[in-house]
């Protein structure tokens, strides 16, 4: 069941060279997409430590988007490859924590792909509406005894 009332909170880590510029293009082109994503500009998707992703989820985000340059296009040659390797490892770990892996998404969005950025945010928002709120500390409360 999709709760259309629920507005998911998405934290987006966008690489400064491609994806943030792509998001900018979506804005300057006046493309319509849901306002659920809070964009954080980082220098490179390779700078996105899994700690950032989990910190966002733990502190109230329902989903996290990591977006960087297409493989081969990294401004720092291979930062996005590090993101590419961390991502499935983080997903495997999230599975074991009981966090749906669809809550964390890695996308390659170039500076010219404003339309793609808008589409990714729309799809992801819809996906998270289907998954429902994460509310991490609250969710695990029922599995912890009060101390």
């Amino acid at each position, binding site marked *: 069941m999709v709760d259309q009332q629920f507005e998911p909170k998405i934290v987006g880590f966008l690489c400064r060279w491609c994806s943030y510029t792509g998001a900018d293009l979506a804005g300057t082109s006046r493309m319509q997409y849901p306002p659920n994503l809070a964009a954080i500009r980082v220098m490179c998707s390779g700078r996105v430590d899994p700690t950032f992703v989990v910190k966002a989820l733990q502190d109230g985000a329902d989903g996290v988007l990591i977006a960087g340059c297409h493989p081969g296009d990294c401004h720092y040659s291979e930062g996005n490859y590090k993101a590419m390797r961390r991502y499935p490892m983080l997903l495997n770990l999230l599975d*074991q924590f009981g966090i749906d892996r669809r809550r964390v998404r890695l996308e390659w969005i170039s500076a010219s792909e404003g339309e793609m950025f808008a589409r990714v945010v729309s799809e992801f928002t819809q996906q998270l509406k289907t998954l429902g709120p994460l509310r991490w500390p609250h969710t695990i409360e029922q599995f912890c005894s009060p101390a």
Partner: protein
Amino acid sequence: MAKPKVAFYWCASCGGCEETIVDLAEDVLKVVEAVDIVLWPVALDYKLEHVKAWQPGEVTVAFINGTVRLSEQLEWVRLLREKCPFVIAFGSCAHLGGIPGLANATSRAEIFANKYHRSPTIDNPQKAVPLISSSVDGHHLDLPEFFKDAKPLDQVIPVDYYLPGCPPPPENVAAAFTAILENKLPPKCSVIGVDKALCESCPRNETKPDDFTITRFKRVATSTPDPEKCFLAEGFLCMGPATRGGCGERCIKGNMPCRGCFGPTPDTLDAGLKMISAIASHGEADTEEAAKAFADSLVDPLGTLYRFSLPASMLRRRAMAGAEQ
């Protein structure tokens, strides 16, 4: 002057931390010369009423090991906190949750079902599980509550110092005693160890190449590490880069990669996530499929990356599907 009094208490633990006191060897004589051990459940008979009768401050320091798992343990540690000016979380379980903390990857209902129903050596047709309070034929039994999760000590009481390790090395225990006796204590809430990562003091650091790549992870159960080379460079997951040093590199010297019992370095929020960050940099996968195969070669990331620290990690525990009974 009367000798300072010291208490040892154990919660959910294996007894290895008690063993480390014995491993002080002849130094234990110096300890008993300098202090009076007034409470030590593993060695001395002592009851809760005796502790309740202590004057506050009469016993200087309580070394508490083990994870807080039962309501009885919570009662004891709260009482010890009330009575003792210093409480030291002794060993990985009290510090970070330790091995019993891995129970946070499952639920109380699952633990009871495994232990009391599914275990092949159990004959339990009534499917009984321990109850906090039960009466049979006019006989009444009260048992401590088994908590839903395992808790490190600082999740239930304020802790003054941490002595990490599984178990803490005897040298660190001796150093802690000396610090207390000579009143040369580090700032409150300090972890007694070094602040740098284990790699800094690792005897194999020299053999670590400047750059290396890992194709797939190997496991010590199925491959034997070279006794000289850096474990990570060989493809064995070693928690050294994200783990506090000061342990004496006992595992490394035994040809076993670091499993992280000293916990994260002080500037690391979460050792497991930091390790993912670090090891992914050494992968050679350059397609999404290869990256997935690389990730899948790390079997049981939760149990490997949080072997000693799950309840103290950022996410603390697994969220189970369906409600806990």
